[in-house]
C-alpha cells in the first residue's frame, strides 16, 4: 500500500510541474501587456521599460518559468503586479472560500446523487426511478450558469429567501452558510444527476451478482446486503469520478464566484487572466493543479483501500 501511495504521489508532482510550465508558456505567449494596461496612455517607453524590469517581465520566458518554479518550492509566488501584495498571502486569503464552495458542492452532489442513485437502483422502473432519471438528465444538460442566474432571480429577488451576492459576515457561520447555498447548488447540481445515473447503473450491475443472491439466501438483513456489500463495490467508480469532479467544480467555482460576487481563487484567476497579471494567474494555476492532482490521487488511494484488487494490480 505504501509503495502504491508513493508511486501515485510522485506521478502527481510530475503532473503539477508539467501542467504549470505548459500553462505559463501559454500565458506568456498570449498577446497583452500588463505594464501598458497599468500605466495607461500617459506612459512613456522609458516608464514601460523600467516597470517591466522591476517586475521581471523583461526576462526570457524560460527564465521566468524557472524563477517561478524555484520560488514556488519555498512558497514564494511573487508579487501581484497591480497591488504589490504577496501572491501566496493573497491566495491563502481567498482559497478557503473556494474550498468551502467546492466542498459544499461536492456534499450536495454526493449527498443527493448517491442516495438517489441507490434508491433508483433498488426500485427500478418505479415512478421515482423514472422521475429521477428525467431530472438527472435535465440538470446534467442545463448549463450551470443559467441555473445560477435563474436561481438568483427566483430565490434572491422574488422570494428573498437567499442572498444574491457575497460570502456572508466573517465569524457568522450561519450567515456564511446562508450565502453558500445558492452558489454551491449552482456548482454541484449538475453532478447530482451524473452521480445518480452512475450509482444506479453500478448498483444494478452489482445487485445482479451471484454473491448478492447468496447473501440474501443466508438471511442477511437487506440493509446489510445493500450498504455493506453492494454499495461498497458500486461506489468505487463514483469515488474516481468525484476525484475528477473536484477539478470540474474548481472550474465551476470560477463562474460561481463571479456571478455571486464571492471571494475565491476562481475569481482571482479570471481577473488575473484579463489583466495579464501573470504572478496571480500562475499562483492560482499552481494551487488549483495541486488541489486537482491531490484529489485524484486521494481518490485512487481510497479506491485501492476499498478494493484490494486495484492495489495489487498496481503494485
Amino acid at each position, binding site marked *: 500500500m505504501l509503495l502504491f501511495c508513493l508511486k501515485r504521489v510522485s506521478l502527481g508532482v510530475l503532473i503539477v510541474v508539467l501542467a504549470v510550465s505548459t500553462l505559463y508558456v501559454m500565458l506568456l505567449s498570449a498577446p497583452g*501587456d500588463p505594464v501598458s494596461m497599468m500605466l495607461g496612455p500617459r506612459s512613456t517607453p522609458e516608464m514601460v521599460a523600467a516597470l517591466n524590469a522591476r517586475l521581471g517581465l523583461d526576462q526570457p520566458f524560460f527564465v521566468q518559468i524557472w524563477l517561478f518554479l524555484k520560488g514556488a518550492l519555498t512558497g514564494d509566488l511573487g508579487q501581484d503586479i497591480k497591488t504589490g501584495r504577496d501572491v501566496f498571502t493573497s491566495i491563502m486569503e481567498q482559497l478557503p472560500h473556494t474550498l468551502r464552495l467546492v466542498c459544499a458542492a461536492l456534499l450536495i452532489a454526493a449527498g443527493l446523487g448517491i442516495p438517489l442513485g441507490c434508491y433508483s437502483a433498488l426500485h427500478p422502473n418505479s415512478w421515482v426511478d423514472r422521475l429521477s432519471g428525467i431530472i438527472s438528465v435535465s440538470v446534467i444538460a442545463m448549463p450551470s450558469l443559467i441555473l445560477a442566474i435563474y436561481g438568483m432571480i427566483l430565490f434572491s429577488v422574488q422570494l428573498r429567501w437567499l442572498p*444574491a451576492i457575497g460570502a456572508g459576515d466573517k465569524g457568522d457561520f450561519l450567515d456564511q452558510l446562508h450565502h453558500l447555498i445558492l452558489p454551491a447548488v449552482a456548482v454541484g447540481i449538475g453532478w447530482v444527476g451524473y452521480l445518480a445515473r452512475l450509482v444506479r447503473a453500478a448498483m444494478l450491475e452489482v445487485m445482479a451478482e451471484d454473491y448478492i443472491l447468496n447473501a440474501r439466501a443466508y438471511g442477511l438483513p437487506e440493509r446489510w446486503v445493500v450498504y455493506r456489500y453492494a454499495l461498497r463495490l458500486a461506489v468505487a467508480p463514483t469515488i474516481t469520478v468525484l476525484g475528477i469532479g473536484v477539478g470540474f467544480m474548481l472550474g465551476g467555482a470560477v463562474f460561481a464566484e463571479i*456571478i455571486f460576487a464571492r471571494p475565491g481563487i476562481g475569481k482571482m484567476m479570471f481577473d488575473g487572466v484579463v489583466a495579464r497579471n501573470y504572478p496571480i494567474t500562475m499562483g492560482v494555476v499552481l494551487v488549483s493543479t495541486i488541489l486537482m492532482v491531490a484529489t485524484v490521487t486521494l481518490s485512487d488511494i481510497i479506491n485501492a483501500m476499498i478494493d484490494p484488487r486495484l492495489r495489487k494490480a498496481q503494485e
Partner: protein
Amino acid sequence: MNTQVITPITFKGRLRHHATAAIATLSIAAFAALSPISTAFADTLRMYTPSDPASLDPAFFGTTTDVYLMNNTMPRLQTMALGDEWKLVNDVAETVDLSDPANITFKLKEGLQWANGYGELTAEDVKYSFERHKDPELGSYIAGEFDALIEVELTGKYSGIIRLDSPSVPMWQLTIAWTGGVIVSKKEAMENGGKLPLPPKATLNAYTFAEFAPGERIVLKADPNWRGETPDFDEVVMIPVSDTNAAEIAFSAGELDFLPTTASTTEQLRKQWGDEATITQLPTIDFTWLGINAQHPNLTDPKLRRAIQLAIDFETLVDVTYEGMEVDRATGFAAPGVVGHREANLYGHDPEAARALIQEAGLEGQTVEIQVANYGLRSTQAQLIQAYLSAVGLNAEINAMDEATYWDLSAFPTTDRQITLKTWFGNPEVMYALSTFTEAGFDGWNWEGYASEEYDALMAQAYETPDPVERGAIYVKMQDMLEEAGTHSFVLNGPNTIVTRKGIVPGHWPDGRPVFHAFKKVE
C-alpha cells in the same frame, strides 16, 4: 434476474420518513427567516464596485474603485464640486492662487487631523506628496504628469508655492486637483518604505477605513474628525462585483442601495424597477472616438480617411447602440460644460461624397480593418461601422480582441493599427487627451499617427493660458485640426447611469462619481 426489493413498512421507517420531512420543512423556514433586509433607512450605504482596489497611493492607482475610495477618504488641495457643473472648490486648501500658472500659491486650512493619530496636515505633507512622484526610486506611474514640477517651496507651516519650470495650467486641473494630486501623510508613507499601504490608516476626509477583505468587501466608517456636515450614513460597504448583471440582480434583491451601471441598460432598468429606484442618466466627460491611423499603408491617403469619416452616420450609430436614451454624438474630447467644448463637428454623414472621394482616389474595394475590444457595445458598433464602410465601396474587416490584447496595441509599431474605436476616462481638462497626439506617441498611444508642428505650438500655448475662455478656444482649434486631418471622428461623451434605492438621494460629481458624505436619506 428480478432484483426489485420489497421493503416492509415498519414503525422505524415511518418515523424516519416523518423526521426527514420535518427537518426539511424547518430548514426551509429557517433560511427564509434569514432573508436579507433592505436597509434603505439604516445607517449603512451599500454599493457595488467593479473590482477590489489596486492601490490607494496616488502614485500607483489604477482602478475605478481606487478613484472612488480616494475621492472619499483622502484629501486634495481642491476638489470637484457636487452637482451638475464641473468646477473646483477648495478641499483642504483655504486659498489657492492660480494667477501665475508657473507659481501656484496655496494655504491650508489649519487644525485638520489625519485619522488614526497621524497628526496634523501641514504643507510638509503637500510638499512630500507632490515631489515624491519625481523620485525615480518610487517609480510613480504618473511621474510624467509632474515633469513640470521643480519643487514645492514651503513658506510656512500651512503654506507653500508649487513652482513649475514652465507655466502649466492643465497641470492644476489635470493632476493636482485630480487623482494624481491626492495628498498623503508623509509620516505613514515613510513608515511603509515611501508607499501608502492598502488600505491607508492616515485618511483625511469624511470616511476612513474600517475593514478591507479582498474579494469580499471594503467598509468605510464616518470619520468623527470630519470637518463638514455629519454624513447621513455612518458606514459605507462597497462590494466588488465583477459582473454588472449580477450587481443589478443584487440591487433587485435589496442587497445594494447605490449602483453605477452601464448606460445601455437604463431603459430596461426603468421598466424593471419603476418606483423602487431612482434611475438617473448623467453625462460624463469620458470620450469615445474613431481613430484612423494616418501612418498605416492602407490609410495614408487623406481622401480615404475623409471618406471614412463621411461614410459613417455617427448620430444613428449612437442612437442605435444607446436605444431609448437621450444621447447625442460627441463633438470632441471636451464634453459639454468642459473647457474646449466644440459646438459642432466639421464633417457629418455624406455617403455620396464618401463614394466620390474613394473613386477619385482609385481605392474602391480597399481593405481596411476595424479594431475593437470585444466588450460592451463595441462589437455592435464595429458591425455598424463595417456596414457603413461597405456601403461606400470599402472592404471593412472587424478584428475584435479581448481587452488586454487590444490595449497592447500601444506596445506595437504604429503600422499595426488601422481603424480603432476607443474610450478613455475623461478629465475636466481636455489637455489630458490632446497631448497624446504628437510624433513621440507614434509607437505608443498616438494610434492615429497624427503629428503637426502647428498643433504642438498650440499645445504649448494652451499650457500657458490661464484664462479658460482663451484656453478653450485653443482646444477647439486643436480638435478641429484632428478632425480635419481625417484621423479623428468623435463619437460619444459618456453617458453614465446611476441607480439609487428610493429614500436615498445620492451626492455625486457631475458624471456620477459618488461622494458618500453627500448621500441623504429622505422619507
